[in-house]
């Protein structure tokens, strides 16, 4: 049987083999991601429920564990309504434009030493580029819907993303200065040697800037003015229903997980153990750290009220950006004088 399979495999050309091989690798990353997204929505409702002294979903399955699947089937079988005067083509394309970069960004994430789909040199730049493309889905959705609320949401989102993208980029420049590389695996290996060598210690202000801009980039509370249920109903996706809405939802949660994972990779040593002498490194550390940041996202949503639009702009341009620029100068001095275990 195995001989037969091997002969079939060898019958393919190298290019077909390569395509199949890459496809399987992509599935190995994306299928667990979808499952995590599904249970992240469940965790969100449960965690926020308990924070607000409610029980959260507890009807479908044991303790509500099948709730994500119930939601999924509901969304799959709902009718997709396309508004009459909308721009049909762009209306359908918009969720895809949001979804595709959110998935593509995962290509360069290293899960363990050598365990990476594509180990490219400019990995960090690639992730920045991909996450910044995702905003087009939001903008196009808002415009194509031909609805005032959707357009307002898209406008808010565009302004917000432009503001926070810059702060985020500058925060990552700090990481580059310490690591001396754009490759994510190299950035993680640069932090080896225990918790004292992780980058969050020399880059603490930049870490907070990155986390805050990450929340803003994913349009999550308290920066979710693009959705703003209380003022503009649901913002850019007010006209979307069924599967098209689900795709937006999926992309948003995949982006949240991505930001959480990047926080742990760039600032908290990724798969490295905090005490390498006692405990070994491993993929479990990365997932544990990511889970903590994922919980933070939910915690923020349960705790903070939504920012006012002008205050978001003020925070981005007048607080976060000067903080990053100031800290880059400090870091430049530290790099020049080769301070501490980090800048050697």
């Amino acid at each position: 049987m195995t001989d037969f399979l091997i002969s079939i495999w060898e019958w393919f050309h190298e290019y077909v083999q390569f395509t199949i091989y890459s496809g399987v690798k992509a599935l190995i990353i994306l299928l667990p991601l979808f499952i995590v997204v599904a249970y992240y929505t469940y965790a969100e409702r449960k965690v926020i429920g308990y924070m607000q002294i409610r029980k959260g979903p507890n009807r479908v399955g044991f303790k509500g564990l099948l709730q994500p699947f119930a939601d999924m089937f509901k969304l799959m079988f709902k009718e997709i309504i396309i508004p009459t005067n909308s721009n049909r083509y762009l209306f359908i394309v918009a969720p895809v434009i949001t979804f595709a970069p959110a998935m593509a960004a995962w290509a360069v994430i290293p899960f363990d030493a050598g365990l990476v789909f594509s180990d490219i040199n400019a990995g960090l730049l690639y992730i920045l580029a991909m996450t910044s493309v995702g905003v087009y889905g939001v903008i196009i959705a808002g415009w194509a819907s031909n609805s005032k609320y959707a357009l307002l949401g898209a406008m808010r989102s565009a302004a917000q993303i432009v503001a926070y993208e810059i702060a985020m980029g500058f925060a990552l420049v700090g990481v580059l200065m310490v690591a001396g590389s754009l490759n994510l695996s190299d950035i993680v290996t640069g932090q080896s040697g225990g918790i004292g060598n992780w980058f969050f210690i020399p880059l603490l202000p930049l870490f907070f800037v990155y986390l805050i801009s990450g929340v803003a980039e994913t349009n999550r509370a308290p920066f979710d003015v693009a959705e703003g249920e209380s003022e503009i109903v649901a913002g850019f996706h007010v006209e979307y229903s069924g599967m098209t809405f689900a795709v937006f939802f999926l992309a948003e949660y995949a982006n949240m997980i991505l930001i959480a994972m990047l926080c742990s990779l760039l600032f908290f040593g990724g798969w490295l153990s905090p005490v390498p002498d006692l405990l070994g490194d491993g993929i479990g550390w990365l997932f544990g750290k990511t889970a903590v940041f994922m919980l933070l996202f939910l915690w923020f949503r349960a705790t903070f009220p939504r920012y006012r639009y002008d205050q978001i702009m003020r925070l981005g341009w007048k607080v976060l950006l000067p903080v990053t620029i100031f800290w880059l100068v400090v870091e430049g001095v530290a790099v020049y004088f080769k301070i501490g275990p980090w800048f050697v």
Partner: protein
Amino acid sequence: MAINTKSSSPLTGQQTPRIAKRIMMIETAIFYVFAVATVISACAVVTVKNPVHAALFLVLTFFTSAVIWLSLEAEFLAISLVLVYVGAVMVLFIFVVMMLDINVARLREGFVRYLPLGLAVAAIMLLLMLNVVTSDVFVLDVGSEPLPKPADYSNTKALGAVLYTDYVFAFEIAAVILLVAIIAAISLTMRKRTQTKYQVPSDQIKVRKSDRLRVVKMPSVEEE
């Protein structure tokens, strides 16, 4: 499961001439697909009626040209093109275009009137480009064909090394010009508005009870 695609050939890591030929073929195919897409979308930018569609086609043009740059092994430039132009500049463009209510019919009115001028500009630009392209610098047989770089060659590092040594003055001058442009743009548009009422958040935070609230002792009055 060691997933690593740094090796030059899929799976095996060694390159037979047969595979090398096929890689060339696939690269050519990719080039033609994206080159055609670039040309079509670039034409669409100036021909479609809706300004938002035009801006989106411009985004597509940037994206497809980034792919072509990628196939030229200019990864850093390709990713920066997407990051800077697609991710930031075009978002602002689209932001503005969506806000403006552009009357397309009025924009099209003067088409015939301005046609001679447009053609003249196009002709001059064509001449200039031909002048550059046909000069000695761009002749194809200058030197040998550039060889593909080894797998561990970092485009980013090479670019940085040149940018901060040989071209450091040009780089700094460009940076200063941009800074001047930013300051000029802000100083042109910034004006103090005296009529608008706005909140000062720091004053709001500093407020104490005693600033706003006065507890008045009133003797209770007996009703008659």
